[in-house]
């Protein structure tokens, strides 16, 4: 591909520009077709070949013969040309190796997987956040509790069936202790309410997430180990309508503003009046579907006004500990509680509660 290099007609800038512009044009023309190794090699030889490459010829014909005062201007333009040739070769190489026919953008992206937040942690965090926004503090307490905090102070009568070992998991060798000091696995997070009220004077607003245990048979929807989030709001003049408004607001925050709540009379030893709360089905909007057993409603919460007997037990304990009683008849409050597993199962379509505690990554990784 050897060819003659024309003589330069002069060494002024305009002439040089014109001559090099013509060469740059040839480089660009050649650069357009450099997708194969062979084409690139030919291009390289044609321009950069040691003996017959054009640059060599140009150098011989123009640079070496140029007068000293023109050498700088020529040299600069010569280097620009060389850079352009090399760039053409490089981009031709990249284009051929990386794209070939173009990116297959349907291939999976390269991911750096973050770890998964456990769905129960996630659900508890979300519920807790709703109440934190309402000015609630987070409370926690031990999983091994005494009968006093788990039952007695919560107004469970001495022979209440919940106290039976058929319902409650107990620590070994408790028989010789006084009843209220016996150690057991807390069956709800409510003991934290008692601990908090004994420690603090009203006003009090607490949201209490935690792990609890009951001596239940395992099946698809029951586990002896499960989690609860409870809440407690105590002040002067806290009313049943405040309880309703708070939970209605919380359910709307959690499940969307279209959700409606419905309250039913219920019974818990530690609240009175007590209520069960249903929300309108978040799947069908209340029309009735399989998830809500065609009722349009899903039961989600237990709640009620704190029973005066609970306040009395708290004050009694405060006196025993040398503190001032603080939960007299001017004080009222409400408490509520919900099962975390139940909410997570409903939200994420989980049908086997055991999956939560299995550590099965095939399950957990779906929450990524």
């Amino acid at each position, binding site marked *: 591909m050897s060819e003659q290099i024309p003589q330069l007609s002069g060494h002024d800038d305009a002439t040089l520009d014109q001559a090099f512009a013509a060469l740059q044009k040839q480089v660009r023309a050649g650069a357009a077709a450099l997708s194969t190794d062979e084409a690139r090699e030919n291009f390289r030889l044609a321009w950069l070949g040691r003996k017959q490459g054009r640059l060599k010829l140009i150098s011989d014909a123009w640079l070496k013969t140029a007068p000293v005062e023109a050498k700088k201007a020529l040299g600069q333009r010569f280097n620009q040309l060389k850079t352009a040739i090399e760039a053409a070769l490089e981009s031709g190489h990249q284009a051929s190796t990386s794209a070939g026919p173009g990116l297959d953008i349907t291939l999976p992206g390269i991911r750096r997987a973050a770890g998964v937040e*456990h769905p129960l942690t996630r659900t508890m965090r979300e519920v807790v956040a709703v109440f934190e926004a309402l*000015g609630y503090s987070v409370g926690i307490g*031990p999983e091994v509790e005494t009968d006093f905090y788990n039952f007695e102070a919560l107004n469970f009568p001495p022979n209440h069936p919940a106290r039976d070992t058929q319902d409650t998991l107990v620590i070994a060798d408790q028989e010789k202790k006084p009843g209220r000091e016996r150690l057991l696995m807390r069956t709800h997070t409510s003991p934290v309410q008692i601990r908090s009220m004994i420690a603090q004077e009203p006003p009090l607003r607490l949201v209490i997430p935690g792990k609890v245990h009951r001596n239940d048979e395992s099946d698809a929807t029951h586990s002896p180990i499960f989690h609860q989030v409870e809440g407690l709001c105590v*002040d002067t003049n806290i009313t*049943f*309508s405040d309880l309703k408004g708070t939970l209605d607001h919380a359910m709307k925050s959690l499940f969307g503003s279209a959700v409606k709540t419905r309250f039913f009379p219920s019974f818990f030893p530690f609240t009175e009046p007590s209520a069960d709360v249903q929300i309108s089905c978040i799947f069908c909007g209340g029309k009735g579907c399989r998830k809500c057993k065609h009722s349009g409603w899903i039961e989600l919460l237990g709640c009620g006004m704190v029973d005066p007997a609970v306040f009395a037990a708290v004050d009694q304990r405060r006196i025993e500990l040398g503190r001032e009683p603080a939960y007299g008849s001017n004080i009222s409050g409400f408490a509520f509680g919900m099962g975390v597993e139940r909410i997570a199962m409903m939200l994420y379509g989980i049908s086997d509660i055991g999956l939560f505690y299995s550590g*099965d990554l095939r399950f957990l990784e779906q929450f990524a």
Partner: protein
Amino acid sequence: MNILTHWLREYLPALEVSDRQLAEDLTLRGIAVEGVHEVAGGHLFEMDITTNRVDAMNHYGVAREAAAIYNIPLRKLDDECAPANVGAGYPVRIEAADLCGRFTAQIVRNVTIAPSTGIIAERFAQLGQKPISNAVDITNYTWLAMGHPTHVFDLDTLEGSIVVRRAREGEKLRLLDGSEKTLTADDLVVADEKKALALAGVMGGWDSRVTDTTKNILVEAAWFDPAAIRRSSRCHGLHTDASHRFERGADFAAAPVANRYVTHKLVELCSGTPDGPMTDVVIPEVEAKTANRPRIALSSPTVQRLLGTTLDGGEISPVLIEQYLEALGCSLHPASEVGCYEVKLPSWRLDLEREIDLIEEVARVYGYNRFADTLPGFSGGVDSLPHRAQEETIRNTLRAMGWNEVIGSTFASEEDAMLFAAQRTAVPMGNPLNAEAGVLRPTLLSGAASMLAANMHRDVRTARIFELGAVFTGDTQQVQEAQSLSMGAYGSPAASAIVSAKDGLFFEVKGTIEALLAQFELKSVEFRADSLPPWIAPGRGARVLVESKELGAFGELDAAYADRLKARETIVLGEMDAAVLLASPLRVPLVREPSRFQAVERDLSFFFADTVTWDQINSAVHNLHIAELTSVEPREIYRDAKGKAVAIGEYSLLLRVVLQARDRTLREEEVAASIERIITALKELGGRQRA
């Protein structure tokens, strides 16, 4: 329990709402209708009534609720009966006055025993109640109507007075179901002068039962002590309609009404004739604890203060309070203060004891959903849990590095607990869920190990898991509970030019721990290879110390442990005392402005003996105190098993040193001088610079 709406409506002549509306209104007031089925004449309601409302588990009880809800009149139950005629009828003697508070008896003669017909037969068919004979069916019909159990004896089998007494130890009694029971002194019997006739409150006796040939009847309606009936019912494994009611507290005042009701029906449907007045023996001490309980004080301002705002505007008025409570059977007597009452409680509502119980009744009958949704005013501050941020940091940091959170069982088998926490004591459970859950977990490691193994056996290729949860030590008298953090991993270690694939997993876990600890303000973090716990393979793990205190340990699971789990590949496990981290302040980043001058990188290649550790090399360089030294790090470590490129017992190290000044561009001579000092220091450690 089932309810027929057409029966219900007999007591509620003014009831206008549809059966379906009635079902919903009852349900929203805690008298739950679970199912509504059409039957001839009306609907059958399947009820689900909580055990504290045993008074509402019958037609009249449900009717009373409806009357209160709709503010309509409730017909009196004994309207249709003959007027009461109480006096010296059949002789009755209550010997066990602590267990039997009331006993009524009425003789009815010349009855005709035959199968039931008419309304009783129809309603039994609709309710699925088994018919027996007209006389016995009348007692069951009475039970369904008003919830008070009654019994009919064949009068001609009785020998002398009725005696209500404790059974004699070993006394035999054949019951209606044909079974023969051996009684104890804990059982209460209805007897005559010679023999036991019936197990009181539970089941009648065989020998005194009404048969096809019975001519004369003695009607019994009584009130028995709940605890006594519960004991008998449990002891003999007999759960009957009667025991169900008596166990939960029957209506003391209902006994004579029920007796008159049965008598009235025996006259009407069995053509019987009452003989003499009804005997009614009352134990006043029991009456005082049931039907004649002391009045309780109720203040309408308290009702309003506790219940708050209604959708009808304002609060519940005293008029409504009076109306609802009267409808439920209370009588309200005004007290001296305005809006306050002395309330006499109905004999059938033993669940009502305190003012708050009455407030609940007011709210319930008014309807929970007719209260407004208000929010309490905000007062008081918010106390954050002291370690809330630390807990979140642990979780978020580990997750960001690809670790998945797990939640495990709170319990472990004693064997597993001891394997992983030999130095701790595990607290045994009194009633463990199963053999695998005999103790409270003293460590999270056994749970993490079995979860990893389970994932391996499910063909999950890689696993990175952590758990932040409570562990328990101490003994059964004093349990210590502390937060712990476990980590467990297997599969595809992070690729690295400085550690071999075999060691990769260990270093990935180490790196994770380093990154986690870097989130906290800790004066020092140290890793030590000595005194490893037994679950770590010898020489394949490290202990972690922060500020010279033991934080935990991590390393490759010992082969014996791995075999037990049938683990096919290397597992790295670790556990740290999370309480230390939760109590440590989080590091607050202190920012230094980046230097505006260029950094100089130099790579140095050295051979070192295997005995020289990175810590020695790193310290040697840092001990030169070169002010411009920004970083020194290993870029590549290479050993040659064949001893060709690198001699056996040595390794080659490619070290990258970065120098940068804050106030000037470093001159070549300065860089060369610093690098020369580093080379000299490394040579003093025994390093040979590669050509």
